[in-house]
């Protein structure tokens, strides 16, 4: 991703999302955007485990 600064406004970040890294099998995946539909849905369903 190239992030450009807008000269006039002295602002940066317009249109730039957050990276969200998740483990998918044993692998990590850089961002949820690259998950297939089933894994996206699985990721969304994951609940945290308490002690």
């Amino acid at each position, binding site marked *: *991703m190239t*992030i*450009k*600064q*807008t000269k006039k*406004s*002295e*602002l*940066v*970040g*317009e*249109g*730039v*999302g*957050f*990276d*969200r*890294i*998740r*483990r*998918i*099998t*044993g*692998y*990590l*995946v*850089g961002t949820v*955007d*690259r*998950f*297939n*539909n*089933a*894994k996206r*849905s*699985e990721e969304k*369903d*994951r*609940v*945290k*485990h*308490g*002690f």
Partner: protein
Amino acid sequence: MERLIQKRNGDLVPFDPMKIMNAIHMASQAVQDNMTPADYTYLTQKVCDMVSGVDVPTVEQVQDCVEETLIRYDFASTAKAYILYRAEHSKIRDSEAYLMDIYNRLTYSSAEAENIKRENANIDGDTAMGTMLKYGSEGSKYFIVNHVLPADIASAHANGDIHIHDMDFYMLTETCCQIDLIKLFADGFSTGHGYVREPQSIQTYSALACIAIQANQNEMHGGQSLPNFDYAMAGGVIKTYNKEYYHALEAFAEAALDYEPGKAQALKKVIQAEIPDPIRLEKEDEFLEALLDVLHDSLDEDTIRKMHRFSVRQAAESTTTQTRQAMQALIHNLNTMHSRAGAQVPFSSINYGTDTSPEGRLVIRTLLDATMDGLGAGETPIFPVQIFKVKDGVNFNPGEPNYDLFQQAIATSAKRLFPNFSFIDAPFNLPYYKEGDPNTEVAYMGCRTRVLGNNYDPSREVTFGRGNLSFTSINLPRLGIEAHGDIELFYKKLDDMMDLVIRQLLHRFKIQSAKKVRNYPFLMAQGIWIDSENLDIDDTIGEVLKHGTLSIGFIGLAETLVALIGKHHGESEEAQKLGLEIISHMRDKLDRESKETGLNFTLLATPAEGLSGRFVRIDRKKYGEIPGVTDREYYTNSFHVPVYYPIRAYRKIELEAPYHAFTNAGHISYVELDGDTCKNLTAFEAIIRYMKEQGIGYGSINHPVDRDPICGYTGVIGDVCPRCGRREGESVPLEKLRELRKKFPNVPNFVQ
């Protein structure tokens, strides 16, 4: 008037009874049904009679009549052959259109819109080479299904009974290999594209480690793993330390003793000739004794001691710096270097944690540091998958030599998700372990694959040079649905399905076995695969491949249990009991198969990335939406307790651990922690320790790792970034970033 028949494309052609007779003849020949010529004529006449009432019959109608006639006159096996023949041809017609449709979608749609381009999340389906790879892959699958696989196996794959993984590579290669770099580096090696000498410094060791992974990745369809990363890299540290020591010694001689460069070099040569072994970290005093001995005639003792002290200090500092840089470079390289013509980076894994030598320890420490620091802009590294080997007596308890590194691994994993943890003491890993021989330590491939037992050659129950040959997964929930609560029927169906998969794995193995060394200029010609060094370039590889594993995988144990008895193993003791029975039944059958064939049939808890959605999609269409079974978009990963089911971390570990013992081809369990729990390292460690106690083989802890690329914050981000306060897509003033940078040095600087 001439009788006509309508073809599938609508054309009308003359009706020819000979064609019917030929079809019946071919079907009966295929199964040797002992039909007489009189039978052919009789049956053909019957078919013609049946369609005589129709003005212009279609091909499909005539074929229906052939089927019916064969069945009615009790030619059951010919009928079956004929049905298969029809099914196969209709499949070919469908898939031709199907393939062209796929090419269309690959060409004209983005990965964002097309699930098919996101089958594997670490392959970029939007790039030119990513798309080219998909063309090749889809075309290859078409070829395999229609021209290579036996009809019933092709049909089982197509209809979702089973999934043949990496089917596009069916005719080409194997899954993965545990690469022993120590063996590879000795005397140098060739990548298939050029020869490299034996590396002489830690930085070259690290660079060549990446090259080896890359070269092997291009010859196999799965990930690549280094099983003894710490031991292998330690060799490079030894060389660097020794080199730097002599470098400093020469510098000392020139600066402090006023030697000419030539004389300083001569001094070095004298020492090296007398003390051929390299100086080692933490063994400097031994070296000093020898040095005093060698130089006592040419220099006074005080000078020798001073020179040694100076050289050790310089060498230690420089070696630490170089090792640190080498580990940073390794992580950067493995996250950026291309494989498969640029479509992806190599899927790499490294195992470490048990080398207690000071050099090995330096490697582990600096690698963990580099992982903690992250990539250039502080991003979390995705590759390599890192696996910290936990072992009693080595790193698990306070006072053990690498306990500090275990602690560092925990802190790193709590921030960066890696390393994962493997447990050598697990009851199914420990029997193979021989102290001091890393080749007997279990190592995992990133996703979860494991080899160790060896039924083909029980004297070689080792890790190095071995891997999985191929694996195929069974749609377990479907068998559960179709058993309609009848457990006995379920086992019958399961056995039948496993028999089919065993036949398929052997079919693939036969193809693999016929390949030659020259088909794998790196994997086989460089002796990476076990025993391949004994083969010539035109030898076939079938015999050495027998050290590898043929694996049956499964998905959706949870949904299977719900289909069978209404509950999954997270919510019912009875279900857990049945779950364990099913999985141990599968393992027993594969053990028996291994014994009979002399091969290594193993049971895999399938990673199921692309597969998780495929089976359930087909099953929902077939059986409708069954609550707890087909009502989600995915089937649950292998034997996992469903991700949506609320359960305590300890309980999840207790329930999943016993399945690790059965799944000898590989397994992984994870628990999900929220961001705050994760900051509590004591809690994090408690979970890892519990995994070990319960007999987990390979595990890790998941927690959200988010990052704002604008201000560089890494941690949990909800809707708003806690550091710079922006929402996704919003901009922030540069002035604000300048302010933040004063407090947080890792805020990226966008002003060039």
